[in-house]
């Protein structure tokens, strides 16, 4: 096809489009959509029985909670930002800061648990009661962020979806942690942080499949 003919075709096809909102606004919108169902699912599954809401008064827990919240928000902003051509790439590194703080607080928790409990602080058991609520809680945030990201330009799909995976996993973790503070830090490190890493990695791997350009190559 001649380029002039393509321009004519694209012009004929041009319907009005609503420009996307700024990445930080879209991230907040995503959080507003995602957080209530996540918390509802976790609460519905009866994990509130272990509740440690009061324990959030503990400084380390508060910092951990805030760090996870910041990880979720910054990772979502970075994911949306990465799908806007010409947007600053500096945003892609920002989630590393709250993520590092989160890891540090969990690491500090491991040390404190070891000092208090000895080797028992590193006992690892499967936390099967968390599996179902975790998966259910993740459905709406995943669907919402994927739908929103597909409106953007998949310039770096692996990075975009890895960041989106980090954001989703952080939100789910936030809810789980709220009702699960009784766990030793090593359990949190393996089951919570570990799952975040695996989920973000899987999301990144699936990036090019889930966020492909929708225009088929002309001369395939």
């Amino acid at each position: 096809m001649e380029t002039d003919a393509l321009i004519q075709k694209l012009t004929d096809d041009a319907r009005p489009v609503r420009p996307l909102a700024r990445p930080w606004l879209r991230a907040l919108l995503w959080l507003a959509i995602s957080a209530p169902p996540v918390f509802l699912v976790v609460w519905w599954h009866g994990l509130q029985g272990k509740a440690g809401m009061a324990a959030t008064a503990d400084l380390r827990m508060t910092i951990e909670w805030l760090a996870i919240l910041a990880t979720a928000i910054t990772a979502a902003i970075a994911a949306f930002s990465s799908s806007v051509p010409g947007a600053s790439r500096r945003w892609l590194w920002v989630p590393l800061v709250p993520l590092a703080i989160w890891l540090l607080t969990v690491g500090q928790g491991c040390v404190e648990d070891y000092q208090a409990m000895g080797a028992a602080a590193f006992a690892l058991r499967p936390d099967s009661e968390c599996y179902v609520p975790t998966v259910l809680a993740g459905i709406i945030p995943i669907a919402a962020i994927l739908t929103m990201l597909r409106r953007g330009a998949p310039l770096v799909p692996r990075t975009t979806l890895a960041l989106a995976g980090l954001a989703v996993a952080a939100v789910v973790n936030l809810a789980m942690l709220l009702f699960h503070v009784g766990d030793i830090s090593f359990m949190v490190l393996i089951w919570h942080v570990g799952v975040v890493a695996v989920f973000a990695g899987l999301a990144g791997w699936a990036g090019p499949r889930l966020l492909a350009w929708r225009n088929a190559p002309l001369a395939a």
Partner: protein
Amino acid sequence: MTNTDGIGARLRDLMVAAQAGDRTAYSSVLSEIAPIVRRLVRRRFGFLSGEDIEDALQEVLLSVHNARATYDGARPFLPWLMALAHNRSVDAVRRIARRSGREVAVAEYPETFDPADTNPEDDTYGDPEALRAAVAELPKGQRVAIEMLKFREMSLKEAAGASGMSIAALKVAAHRATKALRVALTGRDDRGN
């Protein structure tokens, strides 16, 4: 204001109008960015042929079209375009390279048979009048088969539907008609007798 600033500001205004549904503005955007992107692709991938440069350009234009909602009118237009063009032209060039790797350029396709055998001097269309007369002499079934399968190039299924004959009967009738026509037109059968 530099020239680039002027072009950027103009394209920004046009793109904002295009996002609102102004097709004339959109046509201007695409027409004006095409030479910019073409230059960019040519500069970055000097080894590409003219056709491949157009291929990459078209891929960028398609992506501009699909990603036009990501443009924020409060931001400069050219960095948006350049980021998109860099990203998509690299993808296009990768695809072109893969495609080229599967193709072998040849000036002339080699002949698979001896030209003397495949181009006999007496291989002419013959006399159409004589052919028509010979076909008219055929029994009805053979005539129908030849007319539908050879002259009108219908498939066996189509010819069977149109003639009411079975596919097997059509095949037999066409075979017999061909033999009869060969004898009628050349005086020889397929064994050369």
